[in-house]
C-alpha cells in the first residue's frame, strides 16, 4: 500500500467563534485543494469526519454542507467519535485502492465551542458504554482515571511521573503556530488545577475545541501522470475494536484495539516500530497517550514514559491533543497533516498516528512515509 498524499491543510485549532461548520469545511477544503493544485471539479469524492455535529448544532448532514461550500457531489460522512478522522482516511484510501476514485478529499471538522464546556463534556460522553458506564455516572475521564490509578499502582508511578507526557506535549506545541495552547507546563501548575476524576486533574486533560484539517489522497497512476507534488504517502491503516466497558476488558492497562489496529497497519505497510521516527499518540489524558505508545509497540508495558523521556521530539512533536486541542472529528486528520509536514522537515522516513474513540472501543492507526 502506498497512497500519495498531494494536499494538506489544517486550520488553527482553538475557540474559532467567527467560524461555523460550513466555514471550517470550506477553509480546510479549499486550501487543501490549493496546496494540491486541484479544484473541486477534479475531486471524485469527499470523506468528511465529524463526531458530534448533530448534538452540537442539531445539524447532521455535513455532506450537504460540503456540497454547498465546495461543490463536491459524492460525499460520505464518517462518524465514529474521536476516531472519525483516522477512519475517514482509511476509507478514502480504500476508495482509491478499489480503482473507483483518482482524487479523494478527506476533511475532518468539529465546532466544540458552539456548546458551553460542560455541555460539550456531556456530549462527549456518548463515546463510552451507555448501559453500564454512562448509566451509573461514569465519563470518559472517570474511566481513564480508573485506568490511570491501576497503571500507577501496577507500575509504581506517581502523578508527577505521568505528567511528563503533558509537559513534553506543551513544550513541543510552543513552536506550532496552529496549536491552541502554546505555553509551558510544569508539575506545580498541573497539580494546582482541580480534580476532574481523581487522579486526573483539569490540566491533565485535552480541551475540546474548534478546527478542521484536510488531506487529499490520490491514486499512484494519477500522481505520476500529472506529476503532482507528493507531500507524503499513506503506507498502512488499521482499525480494530475492543469491548467498550472497562468491565469487559481483560486488562485495564492495555488498549487491545490500539495494539490490533497497529498490527494491521504494520502488516499492510511492511514497516515495524523500530523504523518509525515520529509518533502522534492519543494524549487525551496522560495515561491514554502513554498506553497508546506502548500498545503501538514502542515500549513495554509500564515503560511508555521512559520512552518519551528518551525521545521527546519523536512523540507529539506537534504538541499532541493536549497542546493543539482536540477538534474531535478533525484530530485524526490533523495528526496526518502534522506528521507529513514534519517527516519532510526533519528528514524522517516514517511516522505513525493513533486515535481511539472514548476509552478505546475503536482504535485507528495510520502509518505515513515521506
Amino acid at each position: 500500500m502506498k497512497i500519495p498524499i498531494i494536499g494538506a491543510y489544517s486550520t488553527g485549532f482553538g475557540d474559532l467563534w467567527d467560524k461555523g461548520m460550513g466555514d471550517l469545511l470550506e477553509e480546510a477544503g479549499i486550501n487543501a485543494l490549493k496546496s494540491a493544485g486541484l479544484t473541486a471539479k477534479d475531486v471524485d469524492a469527499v470523506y468528511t469526519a465529524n463526531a458530534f455535529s448533530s448534538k452540537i448544532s442539531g445539524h447532521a448532514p455535513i455532506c450537504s454542507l460540503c456540497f454547498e461550500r465546495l461543490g463536491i457531489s459524492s460525499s460520505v460522512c464518517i462518524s465514529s467519535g474521536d476516531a472519525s478522522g483516522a477512519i475517514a482516511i482509511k476509507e478514502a484510501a480504500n476508495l482509491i485502492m478499489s480503482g473507483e476514485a483518482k482524487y479523494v478529499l478527506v476533511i475532518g471538522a468539529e465546532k466544540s465551542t458552539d456548546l458551553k464546556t460542560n455541555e460539550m463534556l456531556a456530549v462527549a460522553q456518548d463515546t463510552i458504554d451507555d448501559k453500564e458506564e454512562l448509566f451509573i455516572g461514569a465519563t470518559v475521564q472517570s474511566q481513564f482515571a480508573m485506568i490511570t490509578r491501576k497503571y500507577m499502582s501496577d507500575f509504581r508511578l506517581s502523578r508527577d511521573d505521568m505528567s511528563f507526557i503533558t509537559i513534553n506535549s506543551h513544550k513541543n506545541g510552543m513552536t506550532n503556530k496552529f496549536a491552541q495552547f502554546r505555553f509551558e507546563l510544569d508539575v506545580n501548575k498541573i497539580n494546582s488545577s482541580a480534580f476532574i476524576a481523581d487522579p486526573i486533574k483539569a490540566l491533565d486533560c485535552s480541551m475540546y475545541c474548534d478546527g478542521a484539517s484536510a488531506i487529499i489522497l490520490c491514486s499512484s497512476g494519477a500522481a505520476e501522470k500529472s506529476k503532482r507534488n507528493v507531500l507524503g504517502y499513506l503506507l498502512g491503516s488499521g482499525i480494530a475494536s475492543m469491548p467498550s466497558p472497562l468491565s469487559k476488558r481483560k486488562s485495564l492497562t492495555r488498549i487491545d484495539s490500539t495494539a490490533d489496529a497497529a498490527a494491521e497497519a504494520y502488516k499492510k505497510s511492511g514497516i515495524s516500530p523500530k523504523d518509525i521516527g515520529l509518533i502522534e499518540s492519543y494524549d487525551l489524558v496522560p495515561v491514554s497517550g502513554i498506553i497508546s505508545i506502548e500498545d503501538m509497540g514502542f515500549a513495554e508495558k509500564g515503560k511508555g514514559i521512559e520512552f518519551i523521556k528518551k525521545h521527546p521530539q519523536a512523540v507529539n512533536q506537534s504538541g499532541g491533543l493536549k497542546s493543539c486541542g482536540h477538534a474531535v472529528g478533525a484530530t485524526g486528520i490533523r495528526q496526518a497533516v502534522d506528521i507529513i509536514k514534519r517527516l519532510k522537515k526533519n528528514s524522517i522516513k516514517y511516522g505513525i498516528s493513533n486515535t481511539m474513540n472514548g476509552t478505546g472501543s475503536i482504535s485507528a492507526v495510520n502509518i505515513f512515509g515521506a
Partner: protein
Amino acid sequence: MHRKSSPLMKRDNERNYELARNTGHSNNSITGTIESFTRVYSAPLGFENQAPYILALVSLGNGKKITSQVVDCKEVRIGDKVEPCLRKVYVDGKDGLIHYGTKFRVIK
C-alpha cells in the same frame, strides 16, 4: 423527551436488580473486590448534584466485573471488599422515571 424510554427501562430491570437481591444471603450472595476507583468531581449530565462520588471497577469473581458507584463511605482502596445494594441512580427530571440500579458498599 425523557432520557430513557419505558421499554428501555423495563428491559434493563433484571440487570439492575439481580446483583443486589441476594446480598447478605449465605448461599448465593454476591461480593466483589475493588480493582480500581476514582472520585468523580466533574460529573455528567444529571449527576452534578451527587458529585463528588466514588466510581469503582468491581471484580465479582468468575471473570465478571462491573463499573459502579461505591456508597456510604468517604474513601476506598484497591482490594477493598464490597457488596451490592440497590440505590437511586438517576431521576429523570420532575416528571420522568426514577432509575434504580446496583451500587456497592464496603464490607468491613
